[in-house]
């Protein structure tokens, strides 16, 4: 029995190490956790890109909101933009579509929109204050906020039309009843 004690201790240490490594390798190192799901969206007051009145989150209360953080220097944002254009045209009545320019100059953003189309309002996020408040971890990211101002979740990376349509549809449903997509996101 005594000669088995040391190997048993080593086996226990090895199993513990394997467990830690499994936990560590089990997740995508590029994935940044998002904790604001289900909590009220932080308030913001931002200047629109095309001038005019400042936009407040409080003004949008009562409407579901789709917020897209993007930048002209971001490659995937170029592929994503037509999807959002389509979404704003097709589902503009179900949700307010808004773009937030992340870490970019007004000039570059305007140039991008001139080339790619601008069918929904764009906001300038000075010094990324709003991005930090919302826990943005890169662009593009799309936030889904329901009519009560609760963040229902965010989509990281370029969004595809199916996901966009599904998430917008979910916004008009009551918060309970987690869907398969929501469960996967958690």
């Amino acid at each position, binding site marked *: 029995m005594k000669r088995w004690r*040391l190997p048993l*201790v080593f086996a226990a*240490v090895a199993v*513990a190490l394997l467990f*830690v490594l499994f936990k560590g390798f089990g997740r995508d*190192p590029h994935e*940044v*956790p*998002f*904790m*604001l799901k289900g*909590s009220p969206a932080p308030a913001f007051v931002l200047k629109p890109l095309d001038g005019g009145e400042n936009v407040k989150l409080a003004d949008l209360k009562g409407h579901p909101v789709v917020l897209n953080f993007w*930048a*002209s*220097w971001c*490659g995937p944002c170029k592929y994503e933009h037509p999807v959002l254009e389509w979404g704003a045209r097709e589902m503009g009545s179900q949700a307010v579509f808004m773009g937030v320019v992340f*870490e*970019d*100059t007004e000039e*570059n953003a305007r140039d991008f929109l001139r080339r790619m189309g601008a069918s929904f309002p764009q906001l300038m996020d000075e*010094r*990324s*204050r709003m*991005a*930090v*408040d*919302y*826990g*943005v*971890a*890169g662009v593009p990211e799309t936030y889904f906020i329901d009519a009560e101002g609760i963040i229902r979740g965010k989509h990281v990376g370029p969004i595809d039309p199916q996901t966009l349509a599904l998430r917008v549809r979910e916004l008009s449903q009551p918060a309970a009843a987690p869907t398969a997509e929501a469960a996967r996101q958690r």
Partner: protein
Amino acid sequence: MTAVLLSLTLALSLATGQYAPQQAASDPLAPAREARVQQLAKKLRCAVCQGLSVADSPSSMARAQLDKVRELVSDGKTDEEIVDYFVARYGEWVLLEPRAEGFNWFVWLGPVVLVLGGLFVIARQRKPVPEGAAAAEAVTAPSPSSPAVPSTDDADPYLQAVRRELER
């Protein structure tokens, strides 16, 4: 060839504005408070980098996070409240040093336990040298060519066995 292509691509993308333009950060606070800002920023992970702290990263997102720390410090928030602000958004992932609680104790104490375990194993493997043998070694060591050596050779049953095998 690849290097040339890569540098050309990089030059082209820089020339056409495919990068995040630098934005001016907020001004540093009074030295004592700025030291607190930097200390906090060292503990927070930059959201868009690979394992860099907010204080060390030159990215504009890190600048923005640093600005936020500065804003919260000048609002008179405590260190804990500021850390909680970031944890509420990015989870414990944002802390470069995991909090010493719950499962995290494993990370803090694991290396110490492993080192102690290693020392224990070494201590057990090291057989204590018998007192008599140590004394004999001390006597024979200074004069390896002395006649004492052949006599110990004769006494060794293993050597005797070898000699017998050779003489056969």
